[in-house]
């Protein structure tokens, strides 16, 4: 950055504004956690109490016992993990194909894949619902997972990365008689680790937070994912604020944990996605 010294008063001003922004970003989280440990008599009081005087775990117990939040939690883990794994693998394989294979029509095919990025997801909502219905896949894990696993962005992202792997490495392996599958496993995948990690994080966060699809595909209580479950809890237990807050906490906290461990991949991925232009 610039070498010139920044005057103290300006430094102070910058910090005050940033600290105010921090408060605005952090208070909803703090308020959610604080409320989730409160008894009803500490919730409906004015002025609000920042920290519960008699913290309680009752809300969390009720959440798992009465509302049965365990099932959507399990569903979400199954769906998010499986769809992330499948999506990253399919993206890496197709990305490798588009980056290094030689065949006629490759560029056109790739353009077709990119063109689907222009189409908003809502456009396919009703047809995919009808297709899943006719395949009897509504309210199944397959129905929750499959429609999202082939992502144009993922293929594009992996292709860009794999293109930068030198052809010489691949040609040398080919001389030794290695076939595409072996090259993919032993050369492409190990060298693409940073891109794979970034895509994994992005897909996982996306799958975990996904709402509109599961809302439509999972209408049976047993197949609810966490976001659907929390929207139902809000509707059914409108008065039980603490219950809602503990539910929100359960939905939000895994992603925050993932984020803390994977910050650098997220930031790298964002700057890569900005390079598209």
């Amino acid at each position: 950055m610039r070498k010139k010294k920044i005057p103290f008063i300006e430094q102070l001003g910058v910090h005050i504004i940033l600290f105010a922004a921090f408060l605005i970003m952090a208070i909803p989280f703090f308020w959610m956690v604080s409320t989730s440990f409160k008894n009803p008599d500490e919730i409906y009081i004015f002025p609000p109490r920042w920290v519960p005087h008699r913290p309680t775990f009752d809300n969390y117990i009720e959440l798992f016992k009465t509302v049965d939040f365990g099932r959507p939690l399990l569903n979400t883990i199954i769906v998010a993990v499986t769809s992330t794994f499948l999506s990253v693998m399919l993206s890496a394989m197709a990305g490798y194909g588009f980056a290094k294979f030689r065949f006629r029509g490759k560029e056109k095919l790739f353009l077709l894949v990119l063109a689907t990025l222009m189409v908003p997801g809502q456009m396919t909502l009703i047809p995919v619902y009808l297709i899943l219905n006719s395949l009897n896949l509504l309210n199944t894990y397959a129905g929750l997972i499959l429609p999202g696993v082939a992502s144009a962005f993922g293929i594009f992202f992996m292709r860009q990365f794999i293109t930068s792997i030198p052809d010489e490495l691949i040609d040398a392996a080919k001389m030794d008689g290695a076939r595409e599958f072996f090259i993919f496993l032993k050369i492409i995948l190990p060298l693409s680790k940073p891109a794979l990690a970034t895509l994994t994080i992005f897909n996982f966060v996306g799958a975990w937070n996904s709402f509109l699809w599961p809302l439509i595909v999972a209408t049976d209580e047993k197949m609810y994912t966490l976001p659907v479950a929390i929207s139902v809890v809000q509707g059914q237990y409108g008065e039980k604020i603490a219950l809602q807050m503990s539910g929100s906490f359960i939905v939000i906290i895994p992603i925050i944990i993932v984020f803390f461990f994977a910050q650098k991949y997220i930031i790298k991925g964002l700057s890569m996605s900005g390079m598209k232009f």
Partner: protein
Amino acid sequence: MKTRLSAILIFLGPALFIMTVFIIIPIALSLLISVTDFNVYAIFDWRNAKFIGFQNFINLFSDEIFWKALFNTFYALVVAMPLTIIFSLLFALLLNRGATYLKSFFRLSLYLPSITNTVAIAVVWAWLLNPRYGLLNWFLGLFGIAGQNWLSDPKWAMPSIIALVVWKAIGPNMLLFLAGLQNIPDFLYEAAELDGANRWKQFLHITVPSLRPQLLFVSVMLVIGYLQLFEEPYMLTKGGPLNSTMSIVLYLYRQGFYQFNFGYASAVAVVLFGIILALTAIQMRLRKYQE
């Protein structure tokens, strides 16, 4: 040397097959369904849907709630987009300039809202905006400002939703701007200073032009994203009060999955797609013009 067909099929096949079944065919189907009267009777036997030409689009044209949804969505877009860009850019500039000690801490905390689940955090916002026990009205009360019925007042419901949308959108855009700012060479500013340009002039003539690629990318993505506004109004207001927060996608969802008017809902989807295409094309054209 050409790649063997079997390898092409193994590596590209699975992804392209799933894309065909779940994206490409559905896009075509969506266009088809939009010119039929596809409804609940046709779900289990598609033959029950009749071709009705552009009747759905004609009906949309005189559908008051649809116009309301269009208006609301553009209202959200027109207010939320500049706010998002201004705040993201402001925080990026502040982070880039001053805060050296706590830079990563502030960066992290501004980014966090964007990865949290919209549905879950909307539940928290509803609680913060609670007219009687909510933190916001308490806070305003400290300054003697009267609290509002944020989510049940048609005047305030949309601004409340916009606040949540902007709160969530600042982080990633700020990071994009920050990356752009770090690529601007220092000598540009030094030269400008020698020429006597003040801070504001430096910002206008060096920073903004240098950030043009980021500004274009951010605005295109924001337009696409904000036109698809759904989760926030679904959770906070269900489109109410008096349809004051009904968005295009929420209306599509209502028509499709409450009333099973799939033909009509598909027409809404086609219109949304058309709007997104048109606005993106305009933005791209503007960019070429600027260069």
